[in-house]
């Protein structure tokens, strides 16, 4: 069996974490504002930079959970 079909219980839902960046970045009205600014950088800009990191971290989490599943299955 493969990594994709082997997941059990809550672990099967882990890839759903990858939907979060879509919500965070495509819900434009939630962040299209200048305030609160951070060190002179308007909210609109630093908030989206922040999402680059959040999205990468979520991807790493999903990857690590999948890998531990694979190891357990072997």
């Amino acid at each position: 069996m493969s990594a994709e079909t082997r997941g059990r219980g809550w672990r099967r839902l882990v890839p759903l974490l990858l939907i979060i960046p879509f919500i965070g970045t495509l819900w434009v009205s939630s962040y299209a504002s200048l305030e609160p600014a951070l060190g002179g950088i308007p909210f609109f800009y630093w908030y989206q930079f922040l999402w680059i990191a959040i999205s990468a971290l979520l991807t790493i989490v999903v990857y690590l959970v999948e890998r531990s599943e694979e190891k357990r299955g072997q």
Partner: protein
Amino acid sequence: MNVTALAVAVALFALVTVLGFLAARWRKGDLDLLHEWGLAGGRFGTVVTWFLLGGDLYTAYTFIAVPALVFGAGAIGFFAVPYTIIVYPFVFLTMPRLWSVCRAHGYVTPADFVRGRYDSSTLALAIAATGILATMPYIALQLVGIQVVIAGLGITGTGIMGDMPLIIAFVILAAYTYSSGLRAPALIALVKDLLIFITVIAAVVIIPAKLGGYGAVFAAVPKEKLVLAPAQYGSYATLALGSALALFLYPHSITGVLSSSGRKVIKRNAAFLPAYSFLLGLIALLGYMAIAAGIKPDPIYGTQWAVPALFDAMFPDWFTGVAFAAIAIGALVPAAIMSIATANLFTRNIYKEYLRRDASPRDEARMAKLASLVVKFGALVFILALENARQEAIDFQLLGGVWILQTFPAVIFGLYTRWFHRWALLAGWAVGMVTGTAMAASQHFTAIYPLHIGGFDLRGYGAFYAFIVNLIVTVVASAVLNAMGVARGADETVEEDYVLGGEASAPDARREQLQTARVAG
């Protein structure tokens, strides 16, 4: 003419030329086979793939055009950031499946997969032709990127002499791509990405310091440019989503994915490629720095002049040379990969399918090398011969984005389900192509289509709306054709092909199994 900058840029260019030719010996394989020439044998690990995809996706044109858009239009240009955020979760979920099925069956192009999945060479031809059409103007735009840099170095001239630097650069590129295949851009991408990282990090430290800090940079930009108007929200979101869904349908992106050595490599890269998105966000801000520095649009190059002019004004001469070389080399890597990917499509899905069915793997490689030359020189002639070539290339590249997104249902949905009917996919593709092209043409080739439904202003990315139309046609026609029992064709893939592991032995075993089955059958 800026002699110091020119000398540094020429020296760096010479370095990558040597690398390009030496690449033929790197991880040596039989370059007379298409799989080796066009995918480097599919042996690239996490680090090489990271450089290769980074060098491939974040092109010279990106580095010129994104800050140019921010410089000219403001916040809307920042859509490149959410675009390159959401593309990676998408890659994480879909591309390992594509990699597995391609490895199991020896597919080199997305059209190869579509042919095997749906048993339809016509649908495969549509996918291949769309890929070629969408990529050609993209290659031409890389030339535009080099042109801007050459002009930035102060080399001007009329007639053939003025075009000479561009011609020389492209002839050299064509020569080492021909001899080394995908190994050349992969090796050069290491240099390119390092130069780009150095340039951008220097730029975002030095330039704001000279302009009085980030606060001063943002304060210099008019308020209405700094933040989106509510009427732009839909455009911003659909531009980001549409572009993200389209990116990994481009042949050059898929070539990058398929040249990797396993599913894990792709997944790790989905986690680490966002480093380039961070870089891209910083590059986008260069547009505002250009405003703060008082740069004005150029009479010839318009807003595209913003970044070269900013570097020239802010950096010492030698570092301007490094920065310009980074952009020019940044054009060579994607141009090489795009021409290879286009050549693979032509060879596999047109030449072998329609012109010479009995072509041996060696014939394929020979044809692909030739096709990669034709594609590059086609782009060169296009840029040099047409009066208004720069604008034409930009318009066509916009259309390319519209077109390539129309291959989404066949390629991406095909990774998960066989429910969609091959003729429905073809019909949806055709309707999407026509709708998207008409939408773009009606707006004089701007990306945003002012859609109005029942009094609501739903302006957004035309490519995305064409994709929705495509989806509706595909779903409805599939339901009808399936209910009528129209022949669906044989599927040569099985579910387990899509989840085959990254271990080299597994796919080889599966391929042997398939070959045995074929011989037996």
